[in-house]
C-alpha cells in the first residue's frame, strides 16, 4: 500500500510528467490557453493513460515476454494506444454526446501525446506490477492535468501583462514553465526515502 501511495505522490508531484520528464509538452503548450479546454484535455489524458498502461502491461507480460519478442514493444504499444483512442472516441460519441462535446476534440490529439506512450515505456523499464502500473498511469495523467490547469490559470492572467513584444506568447509560456519546474522541484523534499 505504501508503495502505491509513494508511486502516486511521486508521479503526481515530484517526477511530474510535464515538468520533469518533458512528456506531453505539445498539448501543454497548445491547450493551456484556456481553463475549460485544459480541464477537458486533462480528463481525456488521464482516462486514456490509465487504460493504456493497464492494457500495455497485460500485452507486455502475457505475450511479449513469453514469446521473447521484446523488440516489438514499441510497435505494439503504439498500436494499442492509437486503436484505444479511436475506440474511446467512438464509444463516447455514441453513448454520451455531452461528454463528446466536452472531450471529443481533444481525443485525436492524444494519440500523439508522448505522455501516454512514455507512461507505457517507463512502466516497463521500471518493472512495475500490474497494480503499480495502473496507479502510475492514473497519477501520471492526473499530474499532467494539474500542471495543465495551473499553467492555464497563469496564462489567463499573463494575457494582460505588459511584456516585451518578442516575449509575447510562446517564449513567455516556456519561461513560466521553467519557473513552475523549479517550484515543483521543491516537492522532492516531501519524502526522505524515495
Amino acid at each position: 500500500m505504501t508503495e502505491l501511495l509513494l508511486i502516486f505522490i511521486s508521479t503526481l508531484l515530484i517526477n511530474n510528467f510535464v515538468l520533469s520528464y518533458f512528456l506531453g509538452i505539445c498539448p501543454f503548450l497548445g491547450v493551456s490557453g484556456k481553463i475549460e479546454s485544459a480541464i477537458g484535455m486533462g480528463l481525456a489524458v488521464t482516462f486514456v493513460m490509465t487504460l493504456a498502461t493497464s492494457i500495455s502491461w497485460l500485452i507486455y507480460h502475457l505475450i511479449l515476454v513469453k514469446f521473447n519478442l521484446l523488440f516489438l514493444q514499441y510497435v505494439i504499444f503504439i498500436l494499442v494506444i492509437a486503436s484505444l483512442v479511436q475506440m474511446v472516441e467512438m464509444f463516447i460519441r455514441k453513448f454520451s454526446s455531452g461528454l463528446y462535446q466536452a472531450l471529443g476534440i481533444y481525443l485525436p490529439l492524444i494519440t500523439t501525446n508522448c505522455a501516454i506512450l512514455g507512461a507505457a515505456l517507463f512502466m516497463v523499464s521500471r518493472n512495475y506490477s500490474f497494480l503499480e502500473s495502473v496507479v502510475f498511469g492514473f497519477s501520471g495523467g492526473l499530474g499532467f492535468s494539474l500542471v495543465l490547469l495551473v499553467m492555464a490559470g497563469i496564462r489567463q492572467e499573463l494575457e494582460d501583462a505588459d511584456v516585451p513584444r518578442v516575449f509575447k506568447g510562446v517564449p513567455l509560456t516556456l519561461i513560466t514553465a521553467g519557473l513552475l519546474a523549479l517550484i515543483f522541484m521543491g516537492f522532492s523534499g516531501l519524502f526522505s526515502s524515495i
Partner: protein
Amino acid sequence: MITTAIITLGVAGFIFSLTLALLSKRLKVEEDPRALKVIEILPGLNCGACGFSGCRAFAEAVVREGQIFNGCLPGGDELNQQISAVIGVTACLQSKSQVVVCRCGAEASEKKVATDYQGLLTCRAAQITGGALDCLYGCLAFGDCLKVCPVSALSLENKKIRVDFSKCIACGKCIQACPRNLFELVPWSKVNDLYWVACNNTEKALKVKKVCSRGCISCTICAKVSESPYYIKNNLSYLDYTKLSSETPLEAAKTKCPTKCIFSAKNPKGA
C-alpha cells in the same frame, strides 16, 4: 523468431483492425447527412459569430432546428442561401450585409495627450486608469480590438483604427472589446459608398477642441445640407442609415465638414 514475430504482430493488427472496423459500423452515429453537407459549405473559421461554439455546432443546430438563426456572418448572403437550400427552408436574408466602422478618426498628431502614460498597454487598462488620451471618448489605440478580430480586418495606422471592409465579417467581437464603444455596425449599402461620422465625443464644441483637432464640434453644417441624412444629437453628428438612397447628398455634407470628421470608403463589393 521471425515467424513468431510475424504471427504476433499480424494477429494483433488483425484483432485491432477488426475491432475498429466492427466498432465503426456498430457505433456509427447516425449523423444527419445534411449536417455534414452544411459543415462542408461553412468556411470553418470557428469564429463563433453565429452564436454557436463553432461551425460544427452551428451546422448541427441548423439541421436540428430547421432554421438558420442569424446565419453565418463570414459566409454572407450567398452562403446562407446555400445552407437554406440544404435544409429546405427559405433563408431569412439580412436586407443588407453589415460592416463595422470606428467612430474615432483622429490620428496621432490630432489627438492631444497631456500626461506621459506609464500604465499597462491595453485599452481596457488605460480606460480604467486614464491618462493615455485627453479625449474621454476617442480611440486609445492600444489595439484591444485587433486582438479579437478573427479575420484580421483591423489595423492601427498612426494611432487610428483602419477597417478593411472587404475582410470584415461583422461578427461584433470588436464592439465588445472596445472599452469606449467606438465600433458600430452599419449597413453595407449597395447604392452608396460607405459614410460614417468618425467622432464619438458628446461634449460641447469648446471642450472637444481642447482635446482633439478632428472631433465633431456639432456645428450642424452637415445637417443643414438639403435632404441631409445627418442629424445632431447630444452635440454630436449622426448619420441616419435608414434614409439613404442613391440621391442622398452624402458627399456634399462630407466636404463641408470643417473638422473633416466625416469619413467615407468606396464600396468594394460593387453596386
